[in-house]
């Protein structure tokens, strides 16, 4: 087998192991900590007897390991059990909310990724001059604020003062795409701002790192035009670091979604998760938590695989 393939397979295997370990950690955390689903249903006033009965009824008295594998098997096969609070199947809720969240994340990514790379390139092109400094200043400011603050500032000015966009992002199937986009324009703007700063900074650093290499000097001393220096020599070496930056930030975006959905009352996974935490609906929290963690881990694995594939030393071994 080609050595690169071996490495990729190794990385994927490690990723699967990590996914398993992460799910075990999340499951284990709720096990170790005091309180369980039975306690949550019956509340503080429950007697020991009532608790024991309900635990038996719900199967909570069986060994944790057995329940972990049942739970894991359920998630993989799409049978995630019912929520404690409204007894509805979790899978139905997730199917509907997942598509909403992906819709939001997709548009945020579609806008922020090209914008971040473009701004990163501009910052490098005008390194240490005013466009670079302006971009760094704005990113510093946006890194210094939590997502929900940015959201309310945007709502205050664009929804309340200017009436440009709704402050609640409710969408339904009856709306046209354009109407839906208008509804989510503010949450998309917030998510874009949040990841843009990180992504732009990291892109700038990645490109600068490449531009300072000796082979770029060689290319300049060949009398190539700036365009050709960048296109032929910088670009092939910058792809891998930039893809890594993008993947890391998409993973970051997935987490940002949680808060932004709450602010805009957007019916997605994040809102579902936070709602469940407040209501102590442990089965929902576990399932949502594992799904968020899985998306985060998978994006990081993709970043690793891309940088393995893009490394010429690994692709063309001696």
């Amino acid at each position, binding site marked *: 087998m080609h050595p690169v393939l071996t490495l990729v397979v190794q990385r994927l295997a490690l990723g699967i192991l990590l996914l398993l370990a992460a799910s075990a950690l999340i499951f284990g955390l709720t096990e170790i900590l005091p309180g369980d689903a039975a306690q949550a249903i019956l509340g503080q006033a429950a007697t020991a007897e009532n608790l024991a009965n309900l635990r038996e009824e719900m199967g909570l008295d069986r060994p944790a390991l057995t329940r972990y594998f049942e739970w894991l098997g359920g998630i993989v096969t799409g049978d995630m059990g019912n929520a404690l609070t409204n007894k509805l199947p979790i899978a139905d809720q997730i199917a509907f909310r997942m598509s909403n969240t992906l819709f939001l994340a997709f548009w945020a990514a579609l806008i922020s990724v090209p914008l971040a790379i473009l701004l990163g390139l501009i910052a490098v092109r005008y390194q240490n001059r005013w466009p670079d400094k302006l971009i760094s200043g704005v990113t510093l400011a946006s890194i210094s604020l*939590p997502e929900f603050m940015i959201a309310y500032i945007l709502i205050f000015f664009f929804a309340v003062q200017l009436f440009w966009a709704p402050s609640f992002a409710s969408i339904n199937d009856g709306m046209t795409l354009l109407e839906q986009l208008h509804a989510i324009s503010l949450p998309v703007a917030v998510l874009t701002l949040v990841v843009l700063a990180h992504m732009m900074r990291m892109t700038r650093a990645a490109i600068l790192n490449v531009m300072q290499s000796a082979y770029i000097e060689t290319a300049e001393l060949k009398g190539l035009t700036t365009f050709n220096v960048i296109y032929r020599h910088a670009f092939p070496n910058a792809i891998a670091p930039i893809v890594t930056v993008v993947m890391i930030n998409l993973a970051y975006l997935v987490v940002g979604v949680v808060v932004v959905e709450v602010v805009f009352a957007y019916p997605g996974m994040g809102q579902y998760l936070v709602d469940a*935490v407040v209501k102590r609906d442990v089965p929902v929290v576990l399932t949502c938590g594992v799904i968020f963690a899985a998306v*985060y881990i998978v994006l990081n694995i993709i970043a690793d695989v891309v940088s393995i594939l893009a490394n010429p030393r690994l692709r063309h071994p001696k």
Partner: protein
Amino acid sequence: MLKNVPLSAVIGLFITASYFLAAIFASVISPYGMAETVGDVWEPSRIGYMLGLMPEGTPRPEYWLGTDQIGRDLLTRMIYGGQTTIFIATAATILSFVTGSVLGFLAAVTGGWFDQLMSRFVDLMMAIPSLILALVILSSIEATVLTLIVLMGLLDSTRVYRLARAVAVDISVMDYVEAARLRGEKLAWIIFREILPNALSPLVAEMGLRFIFMVLFISTLSFLGIGVQPPLADWGGIVKENKDGINFGIGAALYPALAIATLAISVNLVADWVLNRTTSLKGGRG
């Protein structure tokens, strides 16, 4: 003393110090009591009046920042909120640093199975976003000031562990550490006299960034309703309490934004300065 400190760092130090002093002396400088209802719901602010943001003929408002959603003085709430937020963030940062750097240094210097075990566990913890882990944990336990500090401190110590270990590994392969080992020095000398003085600056700079992260983290948790619980005030909670006002054009929920941003930027400026000092010391030519 401040001769060689750049202006940005001086400003950063000044603002950071002001916030900490306000937090420490909150009960002295606050005009009213923390939970005291003093006026009507969402009364306008005097500052807005003085800036000329209100129609002519409006009477001069009583409260500097106005009042909140149940008529408490917002300036008082902001000061007490800052106290809670800064206290929790500081305590969590200290916990995170003590745990993370002690374990990180030990892992770097001893190596072997301890290093392997710790590092793999930290890899696992960092493979899951902190916010998600915090949400999972807070669904099972009661959120009190103490549990929040422990939770945030331990979750974040993974990052400090990684940094401390990386810095210590970098230093421990230097020839001067090898020279100390060959001389026959004990582990304590190597850690405290050879490694620590050279690891301190990057760690202190990182401490600033971790502190900012803690402020953002606790604010987010409180905003989501699973952090600091009422009647205690904190900046994230003030946003949650006053967010409905935004739809009526009342900006009460935006004051915490200003507070968090100025604090974060100030701490950032100080951290930048500390880091630059370090690199210039290392990069001394000649």
